[in-house]
């Protein structure tokens, strides 16, 4: 009986828990509630993925109102995969958060922190699972607003301005998306994604629809921080509390990529006039530039968190590049990298959170000799870095392999070379940190001990998963490939 309502519960459980956190007031209790809820969400998303892999796409009519008039939650392989990623990251970051939040945020704000965290989780899960376009906008705004709050709770006062900047840019992005959705409604009379997919081919020459495509593309690109609309990201990630950075880095932009995937390949049918031009003519060069420019800027950053933020911008470039190849290999690479990057970056930001706890700062000069003092933490960071570079036996290598294979298959040789060159850029900025941490003596009288277990274990869970999925890829690659094939064949799949 419950299993029939699982899609709804995926979103409703964290949603109800959020105001409960505000009511509960006491920091530890709210943390415990948030932990419980996030693990419950993880369980639900695992079950959903299992169901979808066995039986095919699930459809859930909210409130019993049949689509396309009612709001429909539709779970296919792609969403289930992204749901899994978001809930895994949430479930791993929350145990970490307890110690980290105690350190970085004043006691009185803890219950509000966890409430916002749960709202953010709700929003992200909702964006992923919904099958209705306007519902997507609503959940997107829920997640965005709560992430503005989360970011502003950072210790450094620059977090406030970073949150404000993100607010302005994020709202513009979301508003663009809603304009696009409105135009789609004008042209077809429906908001349900499957229904839109069915009706759009008949009106795809109309200017309204073409403009809606443009608005949605720009809005989504802003949300996922593709160059040149990435300006909010470095500051937001650098000054937010460590747990928030880890969570957002691993989820928020990934959900943005999902929105792009969903609209590009499901709603707008395959031979939509503007699509190929946009993807290959605009997004492809932009993502290559993103990768090269962001990696180069990362090399010169002295704050390691900002360095990783720019690295994220580059990695997002990889994902969009994979998409822009419009082949099964390319889209597989893009979807696979959503998963792998979440593991890598999430783990690396968690490791940085451990360092912040013990050292109080992540400036490069403060990190001298930290490899001796906090060996487990730094080794986790190094392994994550190997993934960014693309060393074999890490998940990053697997994504790179598919990405370059996609480039080679599509005869984009220059792009393949550029991607391999960017790996070398990643080598430079990762190795800078490695040299400082391992090959330089610690400052006089500096004492630091290894991070507490409650923070080390989540870090190693993510990094360990990064290595595991670099060796045993049948789940990650298999699901990504299935999702890619599904996306490129037909729209949302024939209705069950």
């Amino acid at each position, binding site marked *: 009986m419950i299993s029939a309502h699982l899609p709804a519960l995926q979103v409703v459980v964290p949603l109800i828990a959020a105001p409960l956190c505000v009511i509960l007031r006491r920091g530890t209790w709210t943390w415990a509630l948030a932990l419980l809820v996030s693990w419950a969400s993880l369980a639900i998303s695992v079950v959903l993925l299992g169901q979808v892999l066995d039986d095919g796409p699930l459809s859930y009519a909210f409130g019993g109102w049949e689509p396309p008039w009612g709001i429909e939650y539709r779970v296919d392989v792609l969403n289930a995969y992204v749901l899994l990623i978001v809930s895994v990251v949430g479930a791993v970051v929350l145990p970490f958060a307890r110690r980290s939040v105690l350190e970085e945020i004043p006691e009185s704000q803890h219950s509000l922190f966890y409430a916002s965290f749960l709202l953010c989780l709700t929003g992200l899960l909702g964006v992923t699972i919904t099958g209705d376009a306007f519902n997507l906008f609503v959940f997107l*705004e829920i997640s965005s607003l709560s992430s503005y709050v989360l970011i502003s709770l950072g210790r450094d*006062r620059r977090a406030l*301005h970073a949150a*404000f900047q993100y*607010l302005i840019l994020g709202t513009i992005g979301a508003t663009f998306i809603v304009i696009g959705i*409105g135009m789609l409604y004008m042209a077809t009379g429906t908001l349900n994604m499957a229904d839109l997919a069915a009706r759009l081919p008949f009106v795809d020459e109309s200017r309204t629809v073409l403009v809606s495509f443009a608005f949605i593309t720009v809005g989504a690109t802003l949300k996922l921080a593709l160059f040149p609309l990435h300006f909010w990201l470095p500051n937001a990630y650098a000054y937010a509390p460590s747990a928030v950075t880890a969570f957002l880095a691993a989820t928020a932009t990934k959900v943005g990529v999902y929105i792009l995937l969903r609209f590009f390949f499901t709603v707008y049918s395959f031979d939509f006039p503007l699509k190929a031009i946009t993807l290959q003519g605009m997004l492809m060069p932009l993502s290559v530039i993103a990768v090269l420019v962001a990696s180069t800027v990362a090399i010169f950053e002295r704050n390691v968190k900002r360095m990783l933020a720019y690295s994220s911008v580059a990695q997002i470039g990889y994902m969009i590049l994979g998409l822009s190849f419009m082949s099964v290999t390319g889209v597989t690479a893009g979807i696979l990298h959503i998963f792998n990057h979440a593991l890598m970056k999430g783990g690396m930001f968690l490791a940085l959170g451990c360092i912040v706890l013990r050292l109080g700062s992540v400036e490069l000069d403060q990190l001298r000799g930290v490899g001796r003092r906090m060996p487990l933490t730094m080794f986790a960071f190094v392994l994550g870095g190997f993934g960014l570079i693309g060393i074999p036996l890490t998940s990053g290598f697997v994504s790179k392999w598919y990405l370059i294979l996609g480039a080679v298959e599509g005869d984009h040789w220059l792009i393949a070379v550029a991607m391999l060159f960017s790996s070398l850029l990643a080598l430079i900025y990762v190795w800078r940190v490695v040299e400082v941490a391992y090959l330089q003596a610690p400052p006089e009288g500096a004492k630091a001990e290894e991070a507490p277990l409650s923070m080390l274990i989540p870090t190693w869970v993510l990094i360990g998963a990064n290595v595991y999925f670099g060796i045993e890829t049948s789940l990650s690659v298999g699901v990504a490939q299935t999702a890619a094939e599904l996306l490129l064949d037909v729209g949302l799949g024939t209705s069950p």
Partner: protein
Amino acid sequence: MELLGLYNYWIVVVLMMAGFYTVIAFDNLVKKIVGLTIFQTSVFIFYISMAKVSGGTAPILTGEPEVFSNPLPHVLILTAIVVGISTTALGLALIVRIREAYGTIEEDEIQAQDDQQ
């Protein structure tokens, strides 16, 4: 004329660009929020415009067959207005905190203080 008959859409465009310009051009944070709100309002008007059916009246069932305007966009806009209000409230709250932390709400002065740090 066709162009003049679309006056509602022209208003949408003007408001949208005015709001967008305000967000970009002014340094004062409150003005940015105001610009953002204008920008969002233009979208509301856009949706409501699209809801109007020629000769339609307010969508309230009276038992007699009539031509009604489309109620769905109105509902969508109510949601969007709520989202907009939350955004504005959050933005203003952030401005208050920024004022406490920096002593100013002009973007360039904040930037200068950050660069010194």
